[in-house]
Structures are given as C-alpha cells and as structure tokens.
C-alpha cells in the first residue's frame, strides 16, 4: 500500500469508535511487567511494543506502514516527516558525538523516504551537572552537521532534570523534507528480482560505541560511520528515480531492516554472506566480543532495493560518491520463503537470518 494521502482539514480517524481511556494493557502479563532495555534494541521486543501498545491506539494509513517517516501531500507538495531520539552513552565517541548523531539520524530517516531534508527541530533534556563545555561541544557539532546536511534548525526546546534522573543529555530531533515528483519509495514495493545494495562496510557505529564502553583498543581505531545520507540518496535518485525501497540499518542492524522489509512486502530475501562488506577491524572486534555484525548498528549506511535493470546504474552512481565508495550488491528479493531472510554462508551452507528478540549479549566462551 501507499502511505501517501492528502491531508484534509479534519484529522483522519481510523473509523472505529473511540477506545476507553484506560483499557487493560494488551501485552500478556507473561511478556514483561516492566520495560526492559531489550524493548529498545530494535528487535522483536521493540516491534511487539510498537505493534501491540502503540499502533492500535493511533493507527492510520500514514503510521501503519511503520516506515522511517510519513509521506503526505500538503498543498500539492509531497512532504516527509520524521522524528528520532538519541540517548547514546558515551556522548562523545570515535567519529562523532550525540549532537552529530541527532542531526544525521533525522536527516537520514527523511532521506530514506526519498526526501530532501529541509528543516529540523531539536529538543534537549539535560541532566543537572552536565559540563557546560560538553553541552557547548554538542551544540557546535550539531551546527556543523546541520550545515553539512543543508538543513536549518528552526525550532527547539530545552528541559533540565535532577541529577541522576537522566544520562547527561538526551536529544530528540524531528524534521521535514520534500519528496521530488515521481519518487515512490516504500517498503511494500520490494519486488521479486530486486537487487539489494548496501552502501558500504557495515557495523562500524555499534562497534565504535562498544569498544569505548568496553575499553577495548585495536591497532586501528574503529570510528563511527555517522554521516548524512541525503546527498548519496540524491545521486541515486538521479541515476534511477524509481528506487523501490531505502532503509538505514540503524539499531538492530542489517538483519532487522531486511526482516522488516521482507515482512512488509511479503517477499523472501536472499543474502550472500561473502558479498557483505565488513572491515577487518570490525570483523576482528565482532569475533572478540562474540557479536554478529549483521545485528550491529550503522549510522551512515543505507540499504537499497532496486529493480534489476537499474542496479548497475545505481551502484555505479553510488561508488563515485564518498559515502558509497564501498557499495556492493549483497542479495536479491526472491519468491521463495516469503517473509523470511535466508543467507548463503561463507562455507556454502544456508541459514535463516531472523530478528533478535532483544539485545545481543556477549557470549561466555
């Protein structure tokens, strides 16, 4: 289905009678009585939380597809609208900081709708005791990131909470952008035969954060890949305006993004492990930490599902852009095994690649 509708003066309703204000919690008690960290991991628990608790309360044709943003028509223009919150710890990490991430995150969500990002809002929740110098660095970094991405920060908010009630600084950004005419990007458009392209080596952001948290040192420092992807998307759309699906594989990694697409489009996805680009350093860190890079977060990579006739052109265009130099075709949309992602492994075996229920936990041995 298409998430595009025109906005009428009356807000659209879901056509059902208003629900009582305090209905019983729809998650079975056996699931979880409290929010646990795994509810924020981007895996199955996150999805269950959204699908059972949030979606039924608000459902409408813009929200229901659970895309990176909503696209709607306003006075004839197609507008994309998205929001994202940032709670990363540590707030400064190799390759970036929470401020840069907050700008890139929303810029990228808009870009994944095929939009040119234009305006951002920023809301800060600051913890009492945060060093002014650190806040200044974050704000400077956001300014620089916004300039680079060509967006204006046009509205915002600041709140301060007691010491111990926050983790230094939380940032929410929302943004709007315009979608150029003829572009129709949507997860449900994944079609059999589509080539799956990743824009470069995966799992860098998650491993950069993890190595700071765990105090790990490698011969070469692993830096976050955080970057604004709107420029890369623009050159891709110039090469082939009819891109089917774009997705930035942030938390939950490549696996969660592709599982969501397979589910939403009702298609199968097949991957070739040997084609998936991963740097030697990230591979080494994953081996050491017992993590699977397919589930590790990226902040400057995208996945594109492209008709076979367009694949070569899109890939060539990506490879001349600095953020797409390492782009590669890693798989294909198939008619077999609908709603499931499978992968030919390095040694020639096959396995299913499924979303994790919660966070990846380091293994004992």
């Amino acid at each position, binding site marked *: 289905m298409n998430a595009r509708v025109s906005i009428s003066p009356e807000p659209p309703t879901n056509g059902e009678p208003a629900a009582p204000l305090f209905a019983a919690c729809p998650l079975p008690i056996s699931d979880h009585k*409290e929010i646990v960290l795994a509810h924020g991991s981007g895996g199955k628990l996150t999805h269950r939380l959204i699908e059972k608790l949030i979606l039924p309360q608000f459902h409408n044709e813009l929200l229901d597809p659970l895309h990176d943003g909503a696209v709607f028509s306003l006075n004839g223009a197609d507008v994309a609208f998205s929001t994202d919150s940032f709670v990363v710890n540590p707030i400064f990490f190799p390759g970036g900081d929470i401020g840069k991430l907050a700008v890139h995150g929303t810029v990228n969500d808009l870009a994944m709708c095929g939009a040119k990002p234009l305006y951002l809002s920023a809301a800060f929740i600051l913890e009492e005791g945060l060093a002014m110098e650190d806040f200044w660095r974050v704000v400077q970094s956001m300014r620089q990131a916004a300039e680079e991405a060509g967006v204006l920060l046009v509205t915002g908010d600041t709140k301060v909470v007691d010491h111990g009630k926050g983790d230094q600084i939380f940032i929410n950004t929302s943004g709007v952008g315009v979608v150029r005419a003829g572009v129709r990007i949507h997860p449900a458009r994944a079609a059999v035969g589509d080539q799956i392209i990743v824009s470069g080596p995966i799992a860098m952001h998650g491993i950069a954060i993890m190595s700071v948290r765990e105090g790990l040192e490698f011969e070469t420092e692993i830096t976050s890949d955080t970057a604004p992807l709107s420029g890369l998307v623009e050159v891709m759309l110039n090469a082939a305006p009819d891109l089917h699906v774009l997705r930035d594989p942030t938390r939950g990694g490549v696996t969660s993004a592709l599982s969501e697409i397979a589910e939403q489009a009702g298609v199968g996805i097949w991957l070739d492990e040997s084609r998936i680009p991963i740097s030697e350093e990230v*591979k080494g860190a994953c081996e050491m930490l017992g993590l699977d890079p397919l589930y590790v977060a990226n902040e400057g990579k995208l996945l594109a599902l492209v008709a076979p006739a367009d694949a070569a052109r899109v890939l060539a265009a990506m490879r001349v852009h600095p953020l797409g130099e390492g782009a590669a075709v890693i798989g294909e949309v198939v008619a077999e095994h609908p709603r499931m992602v499978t992968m030919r492994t*390095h*040694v020639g075996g096959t396995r299913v690649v499924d979303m994790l*229920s919660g966070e990846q936990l380091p293994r004992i041995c």
Partner: protein
Amino acid sequence: MKYIDEYRSADLAAKLAAEIRRVVTRPWVLMEVCGGQTHTIVKYGIDYLLPREVELVHGPGCPVCVTSLEMIDKAHAIARRPDVIFCSFGDMLRVPGSDSDLLILKSRGADIRVVYSPIDCLKIARANPGKKVVFFAIGFETTAPANAMSVWQAREQGITNFSVLVSHVLVPPAMEAILQSPNNRVQGLIGPGHVCTVMGCEEYEPIAARYHVPIVVTGFEPLDLLHGVLMTVQQLEAGRAEVENQYPRVVKREGNVAAKDLMQRVFEVCDRKWRGVGNIPQSGYRLRPEFHAHDAERIFQVELIATQESSICISGLVLRGAKKPHDCPAFGKECTPEHPLGATMVSAEGACAAYYAYGRHLQARPATREPELARP
C-alpha cells in the same frame, strides 16, 4: 581476517564434505560436545553440507544452559540485595530463574554489570569499597582458570569485598553419563577444543577405551568441524576408538599446565546438579575451604529454593543427544528465547536457541535454488 578466514573457505569446505561422502559407508551418529560447536554448525549450515548417513546430535556443552535453576535463583537472591554489585558474563543475564531473570532485576534497579573477565570485578571491588562485589562463576573447564585467578588475586591483594558464586561443571563426567545412558545413540564424539586447551586430551583416553568411542578434539571454525567429522567417521569406518586432536594449533596433549595447577589450588571436585539432566556425581568444582572467605554461597547464606522445571520441556533429552530441538512440541511455539521453558533455549549456545536463532523453526531444510548475483 588472518587466521580466521582460512578456516571458513568455501572451496576447502566443499572438499572436506566430498571426502566425508567418499569414506562413509553406513549411518553414524556423532555428538558435538560443546555449545560453541553447535552454534557454528547451525550458523554456517554445516549439517546441511554432510551426507545423510552422518547425523549430528548436540551435546551438553552449553555452560549457561546446564546451570541449575536452584543456582540461578540463588544468583537472583544475591543480585537483588542493595549492598551488592552483581557481575556476570553477558549471556547469563537472560537466563530465567523461577520467577525472573537478571535483566528484569536490573530494570528494577539492581546493580548488575556485564563483564568480559572476572578479573574486571576486582577493579570494580576496589572502586566500590562500600559494596559487596559478586561474580557468577559458571562454565566448564574453559572459564575455570580465569575464575580461579580472580579468587587467587583477591586473596593475594586483600580484596575482602569480592566473592564468587561458583557453579562450575566438568565435561568428562557428563560425557560418561551420556554414554552410559540406556537410550544412548552416540557412536562418536566431536571433543570440546577449548576445554581441552586447558585440560589437555589425556583424561579422554580412558573414556574412548571404556566405551569404544572415537573422540576427536575439535575446534570451532567451520573447517575445524568438517575436519573433526571426517576424522571421527574415518575412525568409525575403520573400527578404531581413539582420542585424536584435530585442533593442534591450540590444544596440547598435556593442556595448559599452569592453568591446571591454579585450578587445583583454588577448586575441588564436587557433585553438581545440571539443569535438564539432574545430579551427576563428581561433575563440578567448588571453592576449597581456604577460599571460603570469597564464597558467595556462604557469605550470603542463600536459602535453597525449591524449583520446578516445565513438564513439557525435553531439554534433558536434547542435552543428552536423544532428541533434536524440533522434536519438541513446544519448540518455537510456547518456548522461544523470550520465554524459554528450559535449559537449551536460554543461551545462544544452547541447541534449541541456536536452532531458533538461525530459523530452523521456520524452515526445516532450506530451498536449494539460489540466485546468482549480477556483478556490475
């Protein structure tokens, strides 16, 4: 990656699989002992590369899975205390006790920390003199040396606020329990490479002779496992039952002498209850009396809580290699990693969890058609 990629070569894997097909003449049942090996087999689809004559069943070697429910409940009782910083390896956090898991306790405010090494707990203990720092010392012989070292160093350095909750288990008694069982199907063993890195191969020689089973000490990369299977099948076809070492780049016959010496000084052998299996005599380690000052079980006087395993769960049979995860009616339905009913679904290295993570509840054996990707 150097020294890793070499052991994941598709060409060599195909050659090893072809050689296994060439030497096998009749059906054989092999058990890989270690959970890490199960994980590799399912992750890379190695069993799908083997001829139908060779059946792999999965062994008891997932330390997280076999830690008894009573011990998990004791850990939870200690972790709940406001004066405690409870440290654990990561994959122990999701393991359900009778009514909770460590992640849930953490969400309710317990100070629970993931560490990569028990030695890190000593730093935490020094930095938090007002707190009692407890490490959940579980695992096979593989993790025992580092756990022993943490207790040894705590005593040497006079760190009095550090203790360990010990639930160590040993491979050879479990192996014998399986081979002695009346419904045993296992004819050859893929031995646990990392346990043998510490312990060496010698203690497996009497087992191979007594039960007339080949034991091939094997590594954890895909080619290691294919090579280990080949060596085991070669022995079975020739009627041999010897201990062989497929993993000499890491394992020496005598093991790690210094590590074994330290373990002897800190631990003594005791009876141990295994989750899903029951009590196995002389199958665990506990602290020697001279280290009781660092024994969390004694310090916190944790009461024994009566526990009850789920009645439909067949994890005991899975751990003994008598059943496969998908033989269980609850697998992937009532029993999932979010709501495990039993031992083998709780850790990434448990057979049920590995089958689930790599989608075997969704698809028994994958379709063979694979697209050829365009190379623009």
